[in-house]
């Protein structure tokens, strides 16, 4: 079941457990909900994420910390256990130097390809001009398809 932006928005507005505190706002788009202005990830906020995860089990929560004081950018994948990063525990930082963005990505699991599904067939020209058809190369053995975001 896919949870609509509307459902999540209603939850945020209707339930006090989603009270992130003052000066916190969020924006929504088709695929994600961005909560910004959270000055710090407190235990209370983590509790909110856990509850959110229970209500909307298919959402993925990503947190991105932008540390302005030293320009370091730190990401952690909050989806697995919502543990606070070590550095944040029991520590109250200066609100001026830290801005936290929480991204909640809504993934429709039903649309993702899974083990046992038929691999969609494609034919495409490779960088060397050779035509690559999945149906041809899989005759020789298993095929690993790697979809990259950038070269590294």
């Amino acid at each position: 079941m896919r949870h609509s932006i509307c459902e999540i928005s209603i939850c945020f507005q209707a339930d006090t457990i989603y009270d992130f505190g003052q000066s916190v706002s969020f924006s929504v788009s088709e695929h994600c909900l961005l909560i910004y202005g959270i000055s710090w990830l407190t235990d209370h906020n983590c509790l909110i994420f856990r509850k959110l995860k229970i209500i909307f089990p298919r959402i993925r929560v990503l947190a991105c910390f932008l540390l302005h004081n030293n320009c370091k950018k730190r990401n952690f994948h909050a989806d697995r256990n919502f543990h606070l990063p070590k550095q944040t525990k029991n520590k109250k930082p200066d609100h001026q130097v830290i801005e936290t963005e929480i991204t909640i990505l809504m993934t429709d699991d039903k649309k993702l390809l899974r083990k046992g599904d038929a691999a969609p067939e494609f034919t495409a020209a490779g960088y060397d001009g050779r035509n690559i058809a999945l149906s041809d190369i899989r005759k020789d053995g298993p095929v690993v398809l790697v979809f990259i975001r950038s070269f590294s």
Partner: protein
Amino acid sequence: MKQDYEKFVVKGTSMVVIAPYYLEKVKKYFSGENFPFHGVPDPDKKIGKLYRQQRNIIKLGLMPALFVTDTAGTIAYAHYSANMADIPANAVLLDLLSSFGRSSED
């Protein structure tokens, strides 16, 4: 994966890297690196869409994904990365590919 390419090849595996770039950029990278994989430019993300590659609006781009298909064209392994560091270990893939060999010998 580049480092373990020979291990993958021993298992009769073809590797296809699908990059969301135009031909010139993919050609430059693959030629310069003497890359042993098939490299496929996918500037309009047609193949990415076929495989439901996820998009992260905040990061302004597509998220990595990896699939292993068997010789019958069935997906034996699918992984959609939740972040840029979320990449399956080579050992996991090599184990899976070994299991193909075992099942064909049985």
